[in-house]
């Protein structure tokens, strides 16, 4: 999995672009999907880290999280959401997320969360 990409899953193209630009300097391969279905149908090596939105059409982020954990158990999932209820954070972490980042986020915060996930 060492050559797996960082996968950005968000229905908002603007957020995907922003995350891509924030992570571009880190040198990791990046891939994108606009919903959970598309994310899970990607071929190639399993992603090392998934940045996952929670509120998406087609398949919710929580459902995608469960399926990603099932299919790629070694993949770290960082939830990125504007919904900052503490109880939602707890439920996302209990469902297998490695971290929860609330929007708006800062580039350094994203970069350091991804590096920590890669190191864990």
């Amino acid at each position: 999995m060492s050559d797996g990409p960082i996968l950005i899953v968000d229905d908002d193209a603007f957020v995907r672009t922003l995350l891509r630009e924030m992570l571009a300097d880190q040198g990791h391969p990046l891939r994108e999907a606009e919903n959970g279905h598309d994310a899970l149908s990607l071929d190639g090596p399993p992603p090392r880290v998934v940045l996952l939105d929670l509120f998406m059409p087609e398949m919710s982020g929580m459902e995608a999280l469960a399926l990603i954990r099932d299919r790629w158990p070694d993949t770290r999932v960082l939830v990125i959401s504007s919904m900052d209820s503490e109880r939602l954070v707890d439920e996302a972490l209990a469902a297998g997320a490695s971290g929860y980042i609330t929007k708006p986020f800062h580039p350094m915060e994203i970069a350091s969360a991804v590096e920590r996930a890669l190191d864990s």
Partner: protein
Amino acid sequence: MPEYWIGDVEGRVLGPVSLDVVQDLVNTGRLTEITRVSRDGRNWGTPAGFPEVMTLLLNAPSPDALLQSERGEAARVREQLRAMQGRPPHEIFRLDRNASVDAYRNAFFKLVKRFYPDRVRAQAHPDLRKAYSDAFQFLSRLMVHIDKELSIGVTVSPLPVVRAVPPPPPGEDEPLTPIPAPPPQTARPLSVVPRSMTPLPRPSPLVPPAPEGPYSYQPHEFVGFERRDDRVEVTIRVTARNSRMFTDHPLANLKTDGFFLACAKSLPLGTLVDVIFRFDEERREVRSRGRVILENTGGDPTRPSGFGVRFITLVDQDRRFMQQFVEKTAAH
């Protein structure tokens, strides 16, 4: 634990989550337009078919109650700010006394996020907006202070407090303690002219020499804005005098990966900006992309109007060049 899936008007789905989470999100105004509900993620119905969800929606705070609750939150934020002022920074950020600047920065971003001004809804109580803004500014200035002290190798000290703040009388909203402000600036608003109407300025005898003393932006230093599909292109002529756009603002400066452009025009928070810096004296052009992270449309009289941008993309080589440019101009 009961599980719920919630759908909104845009077809987005959240779930499975507990009813407690739905309640949190409804009560804080994060979920306002629930159009469908499911208990298994497959069979959906209108909210009316789920009495427990309808109860939440019907009991959602009224606009007045929300405003009242925001006043309460504003008071709590003030209290928190008061408690932070004068305390050693490592205690505020819950770090070891000898923490590295990176550890401080990480802790700063975590803590300051709570007070981002754009976390407040548009119709929020003005007290809450002010309290968030003050807390945000306090932490931002504190981080700049930490950066400075650690860069010269001294132990981080608290930010000086202007005056002690007595506890507010019950139920009374008291203004926050003034945060030590930077030296007053006499920045004059800059007129912004569409690029199409403004030829690229060149140094010319017709351009009056920049006055000595405190810096003020001159119209000829600025080239213009150009709106594109999803972003704004800003072209700025950088001179020795206006290089302070990279250093003066405590939050938006080169050390925090940004700059503050003092001008009459402001761009809304979050705007994606393509920036072209033209360094006339060095005959160099630097291109970068950033996002507007703060704006001052006159609400903060201690600072000039304008907007601050944080870089999203800036090539290391360009960053070094800009840093050297700033250092060189500061030395003169």
